């Protein structure tokens, strides 16, 4: 009995509500649905969590406060003074990615962040925003970011292009990191699941590995949201403090 393993089928986008406007396909897909769910859940958590404003927080309020403090602490330590005004952006980004990653771990749901389109859009917003903030804050002085301090002039000929390049590939590394983690993790789960289903009784071994892998994926889901947010903080810090 051979069961065909199709580990990439879980990433297929399906149209839930087909919408076509002027030849452009803007259908409401399962990816869009999961994004909506993520946004609704984050909003609900924050709104219901802070509704009572008890002095001694209950369970929901604790979760809301903990996530708030976690991100606020991250912004404070990494961006420093003047980073507080960007806290809402980083918090939104972190919570959205966290919830999208966790929702993807529910069996038969959809991992929004395993689509490069989604992660690249997020990373591009960060990149363009950070560059604009840097230029508005510092004007031409923003270019100092690409000139390392205390380096001989000859070396600068080499270092400036490298710095420039490493700045320009930031949106790509930022987006591919999240996308590759989610894609590889979920594909791996599906492959081991396929093993378990196709080799009969012995399948208990790949099933055991799969359980451990799910635990790893939970860690990775939280960690990648954290990494995305902290790198956003570091990029912001670059643009605001110029090293």
């Amino acid at each position, binding site marked *: 009995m051979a069961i065909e393993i199709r*580990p*990439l089928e879980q990433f297929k986008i399906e149209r839930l509500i087909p919408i076509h406007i002027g030849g452009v396909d803007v259908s409401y897909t399962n990816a869009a649905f999961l994004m909506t769910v993520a946004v609704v859940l984050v909003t609900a958590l924050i709104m219901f969590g802070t509704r009572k404003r008890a002095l001694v927080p209950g369970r929901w309020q604790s979760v809301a406060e903990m996530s708030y403090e976690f991100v606020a602490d991250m912004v404070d330590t990494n961006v420093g003074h003047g980073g507080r005004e960007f806290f809402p952006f980083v918090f939104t980004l972190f919570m959205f990615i966290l919830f999208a990653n966790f929702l993807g771990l529910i069996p038969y749901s959809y991992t929004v962040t395993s689509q490069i389109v989604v992660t690249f859009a997020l990373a591009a917003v960060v990149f363009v925003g950070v560059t604009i903030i840097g230029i508005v804050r510092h004007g031409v002085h923003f270019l100092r970011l690409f000139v390392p301090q205390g380096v001989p002039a000859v070396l600068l000929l080499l270092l400036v292009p490298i710095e420039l390049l490493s700045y320009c590939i930031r949106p790509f590394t930022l987006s*591919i*990191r999240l*996308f*590759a*983690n989610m*894609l*590889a*993790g979920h*594909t*791996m789960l599906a492959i081991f699941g396929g093993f378990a289903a196709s080799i009969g009784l012995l399948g208990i071994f790949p099933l055991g590995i799969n359980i451990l892998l799910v635990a790893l994926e939970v860690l*990775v889901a939280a*960690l*990648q949201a*954290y*990494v995305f947010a*902290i790198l956003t903080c570091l990029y912001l810090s670059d643009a605001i403090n110029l090293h």
Partner: protein
Amino acid sequence: MDLASAKMIGAGLACIALVGAGIGIGNVFSALINSVARNPAAQGQVQPFAFLGFALAEATGLFGLAIAFLILFVF
């Protein structure tokens, strides 16, 4: 060589990227253990950076793994 076997070899080669990720993750945690053993009070300060380093190192290996998956299942 036909395309199917070339795909298999290519996917296998792409997985070599995981060597680097393994070395990197090992390095990160060995450094964490080292520093915590020397100064246990610093654990709280050092641990977030360790996990950041772990995630960054792991991601580089996963780029290779993603390429392997792409070779196997997409093309």
